[in-house]
C-alpha cells in the first residue's frame, strides 16, 4: 500500500462524519445551507483528492499506452 493512498481516508471521514457535525441549516455558505454545502463541497474536494493521488502515483507515469 503506497502512503499516498491514505489520502483517500480524508473524504471518507468527512462524508460519513457529516451527519454528526454538519447536520444543520445554518450557517449558510455561498447561499447553501450547511448540510447541503458540506456534501456538495466534499464531492468537489474528493475529485481533487483523487487528482492528487493520480498525479503522485508513479503507476500513471510508468505505464505507456499498454496499460
Amino acid at each position, binding site marked *: 500500500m503506497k502512503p499516498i493512498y491514505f489520502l483517500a481516508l480524508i473524504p471518507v471521514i468527512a462524508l460519513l462524519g457529516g*451527519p454528526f457535525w454538519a447536520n444543520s441549516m445554518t450557517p449558510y455558505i455561498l447561499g447553501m445551507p450547511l448540510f447541503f454545502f458540506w456534501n456538495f463541497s466534499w464531492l*468537489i474536494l474528493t*475529485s481533487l483528492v483523487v487528482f492528487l493521488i*493520480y498525479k503522485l502515483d508513479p503507476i500513471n507515469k510508468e*505505464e505507456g499506452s499498454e496499460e
Partner: protein
Amino acid sequence: MNITLVIIFGFLAFVLFLGILARRGKDMDLEQWTVGGRGFGSILVMILLAGEIYSTSTFLGNSGWAYGIGGPALYGLAFAALGYLFSYWVYPAVWRYGTKHRLVSQADFYVKKYNSPILGVIVSIVGVLALIPFLVLQLKGLGIIVSTTSYGAISPTIAVWIGAIAVTVYVMISGIHGSVWTAVLKDIMIAGVALFLGIYIPIHYFGGLQPMFEAVDAVKPNFLTLPSQGMGASWFISTVILTTLGFYMWPQTFGSAYAAKNAKTLRKNAFILPLYGALSIGVLFVGYTAIVQVPGLQGPEMDLALLKLSMKTFDPWFVGVIGAAGLLTALVPGSMILMSSATLLAKNVYKHFVPSTTDQQIISIAKILVPVLALIAVYFTLTGGNTIVALLLMGYSMVTQLAPSFFASLMKNKFVTKQGAIAGIIAGLAIVGYTTLTKATIGTLFPAFPQVIKDLNVGLIAVLINIIVMIGVSLVTKAASAHGEEEIEAA
C-alpha cells in the same frame, strides 16, 4: 399531438437512427456487441460510465426525493464522491483481470477467480434480479415524461409501453455502439439542462440560491437536514456505505470497465466523473423550488416534481427539450441494462447448462431475451407503486450482495472458498428478499433495539450477514479440504 411531444418523439426517432448508423460497417461478434472490441479511450469510457450512473434516477428521481424527502436525498452526493474515489483502484483491477482473460461479463470474472461455473450462474441471476428494479425505474421515468408532457393526452400505461418498445428496438439494432453515441448526445443534453435549470429556476422564482433555501425552510423547517429518526444519521451513513459498495457491482459496469483501452483511462475517470456528477445539484435545486411552487405531490407523485415545475415555468417547446433530455437519460441506461441482462442470461446461465452453444447462438438467444426482459419490467412498472429512488435502493440492496466475494477475490490471500462465496451471496439475498417482500425494517424486526440501529439501511445488515456466512463457510470448507481433497471433489 402538442409541440412538446413532437420534440420528444423527434429525439426518439433521431436516437434510433443513430443506433442504426452505429451498427453499419461493424461485424457484430460477441465481443463487439458487448464490450465494443476493448478499444475505448478516456472520453468514451467516461461517457459509458457516466451514462450508467446519470440515469432517470438522477433526473426525475433525485429531484423527486429532494422535493419529497429533503435532506436525506443528499446521500446521493456523498455516495457519488465515495463511489468514484474507490473506483480509482476497483475499475483498473477489474479491467486488468478482464483483459488478461478476455472476459465479457461480470459473471465471467467470478467464474475465473473462484474457478466455479455455478458461481457464475448465481452471480448472473443476482445481477439480473438487481437490474430489474433499475430497468423498471427507467421505464417508469419514460412513462412519466411522455404522459406528463402530453398534458394528459397519453395515459401513463401507454407511455410505459411506448418506452419499453423504444428501448427494446434500440438495443436489438445497435448493441453497445449505439449506446455510446446516444450517450454522447444524452450527456451533453442532461448536463446542459441540469446546469441551466439549476441556475435559472432559483433565480426566476426567488432571486437567488439563499432566498430559495430560506423559502423552503420557512415552509418546512429543517427539511433539508437529516431528521433525528427514520432517515437520520444512521440511515444516511449505512445507505452511503451500501451504495458505495454496490456502485461497482452492476453487471453493466464490468462491461464498461472491460471496454477501456487501458487502466490509466479508468483512473483518470475517478477524478473527472465526480465533477460531472456535481452538475446534478441543479436537479436538486429544482426539487427544492418545487416544494414551494408546486406543493401537494404525494407518494410516488413526487417523481413528477421536476416536470410539473418545468411546465409551470417554460413554454411547451422548451418543456419538450427537457423531456427529450429526460427520455435519453432513461433510454441509454435502459438499453445498457437490457443488453447486460440478456447477455448474462444467455452466456452465463444458458451456456452453463448447454455447453455446446456457440458465440453466434449466444447473440441470438440474447436478442430473444431482450423483449422478454422488457415485458417483465413493463409488468412490474405497471403494478408497482414505488418512487424511483426507492426502486434504485432496492436494486442496490440486491446487487451489493455480490460485493463481499468480489472484494475477497481481489485480496492476495485468497481465504474465501467458492462454497463460502455462494453461501454468503445466497444468505444476503435471502435477507433482502424477505425484507423487500414483507417491507420489514430493523425497527419492525427488533422493536427493542435503540433508534440508531433501527434506522440502519436493512441492505447493509444483509451485507454483514453475507460476510459472516461467507467467512464461516470458507473456514469450514478450507478445514474440510485439509482433511481430504475428495470431499471437495464431491461437493
